[in-house]
């Protein structure tokens, strides 16, 4: 009887502790209150390649607004690169839109971190206002149907298994249902 009593106490305590610890490290990708049509844009990267959002219809698009002088943007960049290495060619596209900086500045930064995902440049800061983000970094997820469905304000560990699973689940299932 006594043993059952003390085991019950231990289970209650350990469950509480583990829930608290899990909560602290959780990465979140909240849904927007009301999905909206993703504003179209056509932006060039430092190599003059144009990226049009509508070209990626049918894929999940992660649009990350960032700048080199923004500390949380710098923090999350390596995790975006790791995510890119895992999702490239699997129905998820990353467009990391630099806000208001020159091609030279972006080139130096991306060279340091060896970033390989597309980095279109919103040099006049006009596209970010259409979404509309209020701070950097802000990341939007555009569904295969072209709707903004999720938004993350502030940096994330983008290759976290929970976030990756969430992104992959948003893809259009192929003929095999996978």
């Amino acid at each position, binding site marked *: *009887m006594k043993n*059952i*009593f003390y085991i*019950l*106490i231990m289970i*209650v*305590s350990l*469950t*509480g502790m583990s*829930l*608290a610890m899990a*909560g602290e490290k*959780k*990465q*979140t990708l*909240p849904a927007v209150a009301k999905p909206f049509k993703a504003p179209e844009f056509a932006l060039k990267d430092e190599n003059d390649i144009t990226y049009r959002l509508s070209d990626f219809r049918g894929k999940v698009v992660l649009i990350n607004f960032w*700048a080199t*002088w*923004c*500390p*949380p943007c710098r923090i999350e960049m390596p995790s975006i690169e790791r995510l890119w290495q895992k999702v490239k060619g699997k129905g998820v596209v990353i467009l990391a839109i630099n*806000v*208001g*900086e*020159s091609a030279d500045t972006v080139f130096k930064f991306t060279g340091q971190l060896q970033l390989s995902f597309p980095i279109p440049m919103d*040099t*006049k*800061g006009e596209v970010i206002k259409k979404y509309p983000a*209020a*701070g*950097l970094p802000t990341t939007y997820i555009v569904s295969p149907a072209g709707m903004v469905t999720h*938004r*993350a*304000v*502030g940096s*994330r560990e983008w290759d976290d298994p929970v976030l990756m699973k969430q992104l992959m689940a948003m893809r259009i299932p192929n003929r095999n249902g996978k």
Partner: protein
Amino acid sequence: MMLSSVHVKIIVFLLAGFVSGYAGNIYAIDQKTGIDEQAQLPFWEVSTGGMSLRLIQRLPIQSRGYFLARGFNATQAERIARSCIFQTVFKNTSQGGQPGKASTLEYNLNDWRVIYKGKKRKMKTRQDWASEWRAEKVSKPAQIAFEWSLYPTSQQYKPGDYNWGMSVFNLEPGSRFDLEITWMQYGRKNTAIIKNMECAPDINPQPTEAL
């Protein structure tokens, strides 16, 4: 299987502790000050079970260099640098997925008040500065950098969301003031007053002609 009254009391006590620990005290406001580990400068912090706000001093010399490098002229960079700037980190720390604990957070800097020598006034926001820069015909890249460097005037944070940015209190270096902050969370308006904040002193003044 019979439990004695002592056992029942212990179980009730532990379950109550578990539930309150799990839910956290979402309303109690904690305040602390200290030296920020990264910046090595003083900070003032307010936190509850659902949010944390840390304001870290920025030295005028840091801001001077930062804005000169982004296209402002020396006079403009000086004006910004001596406007009492704090690096600001505001987070929604409420936990998604925990019933009764996750909550959206909203704020608007226009509702916050700087209390200086007994008088209250609003903060100088992105929009206030933007009209000045437009009037002075500051270059577009400099205006964009300034706008996005400043803390957003209003935001809505879901659990896990946060921003960094500069807040401007428009006081002389070394001034002391209180800051009244408000935010909406858990369906109610929350208020706190951060006492005795201090604008960073200008520890590297510009040389004068007399020198």
